[in-house]
């Protein structure tokens, strides 16, 4: 019988190995799986490559993970955010590698990675500093850059509701990178407020089909990053 629900975030992340590539959903705090990130901090894996749109704020969630020093590389589009102090400090100290990727290219690299497409051509960033060193090809008179698909060992994602088969529904703009990161990760872990039995979701409304999801964790009342930051919270 298929039941992808696991008892806790700690159990869901117990096998993250040192050196793993971890995709972390969210655009700013919307969709940021704070409880899963905190469980990853507790778990202790080191030398991680993190793929995420931003680099966290305050000293909770993604920023707290980076602050542990266990992240060696960040692949993201916008590491400069309000209340973002951890990333600039480590980056300017040379302790953190950054691969800066235009947001749409980041999204498509993740989608492609999950769809079995190793590389693709895109018009974004042609003629800019982010095109340096990239193969260029002309189609119908316009230049495009070759970009590589991205895959990950784990994805940490926040949804609203999932069933025991791993079908996921999201909440408003918290959907952002969740569906494509689920596709691109070998082990996609989704935290949701509600876990229901298979059959309780209308198949017409499913956003992420369960084949892309390996583990579901119930987090009934997830915290919001901005509230933690406003309260001056520090994790751990």
């Amino acid at each position: 019988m298929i039941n992808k629900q696991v008892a806790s975030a700690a159990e869901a992340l117990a096998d993250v190995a040192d050196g793993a590539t971890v995709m972390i959903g969210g655009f700013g705090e919307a969709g940021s799986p704070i409880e899963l990130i905190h469980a990853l901090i507790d778990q202790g894996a080191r030398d991680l490559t993190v793929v995420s749109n931003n680099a966290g704020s305050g000293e909770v969630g993604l920023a707290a993970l980076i602050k542990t020093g266990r992240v060696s590389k960040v692949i993201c589009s916008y590491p400069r955010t309000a209340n973002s102090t951890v990333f600039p400090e480590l980056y300017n100290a040379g302790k953190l590698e950054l691969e800066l990727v235009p947001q749409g290219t980041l999204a498509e690299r993740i989608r492609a990675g999950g769809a079995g497409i190793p590389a693709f051509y895109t018009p974004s960033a042609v003629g800019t500093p982010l095109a340096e060193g990239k193969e260029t090809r002309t189609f119908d008179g316009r230049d495009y850059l070759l970009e590589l698909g991205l895959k990950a060992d784990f994805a940490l994602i926040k949804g609203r509701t999932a069933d025991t088969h791993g079908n996921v529904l999201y909440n408003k703009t918290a959907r952002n990178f969740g569906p494509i990161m689920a596709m691109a990760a070998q082990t996609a872990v989704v935290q949701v407020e509600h876990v229901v039995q298979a059959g309780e979701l209308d198949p017409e409304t499913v956003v992420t089909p369960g084949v892309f999801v390996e583990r579901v964790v119930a987090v009934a009342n997830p915290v919001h990053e901005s509230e933690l930051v406003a309260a001056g919270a520090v994790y751990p």
Partner: protein
Amino acid sequence: MSTETSLKGWTRDEMAKRLAQDIPDGSYVNLGIGIPELVAKYVPDGREFVYHTENGLLGMGPSPQDGQGDPELINAGKRYVTANPGAAYFHHADSFAMIRGGHIDLCVLGALQVSQSGDLANWSTGEPNAIPAVGGAMDLVAGVKSIYVITQHCTKAGEPKLVESCTYPLTGLGVVTRIYTDLAVVEVTQDGFRLVELSPGVSFKAVQERTGAKLLPALDGVR
């Protein structure tokens, strides 16, 4: 640059209102952060625009009242917004397929510099200690059908933002078609910058003096 230091053109709101006049009814529009956001306040009577925000919402509505914000309903500037009737949510790959695939009609962006061939620099001043951050700007300029810039004509230090060629790192090559500043509306043509309209009380000469490249006069019949 200091011949008429007291020159007073359009306010930011007037710039936004002027730009909104040029958006056709039914357009799908992406508004950048800052002055571009003001455009949404000035939809001309009888027109309806659908706002796209690249983090995953079509049909973005105004900010909610204080205390009513939902941390999971935000715009690309990470500010609380609302969803209008007819809105849709989607993931990032779909959002940027809308952008790159040419499905969005217009994007309004701020600028550090715009060149006379329409090159845009708006993501980095290239300072060595700055944290590099690009977001979706390079995708927007590469894929949206029309790119309008709304910006002050000069920097706070009085340097022109409309230049022969950009000195800051580029966001895109030959992408900007129109520029709305406090002093004028300018279009980017094959021959360079051409005046479309002057802010009331501002002379062509004054705008040329504050522009870092040749400004062509408005075509006959256009003021």
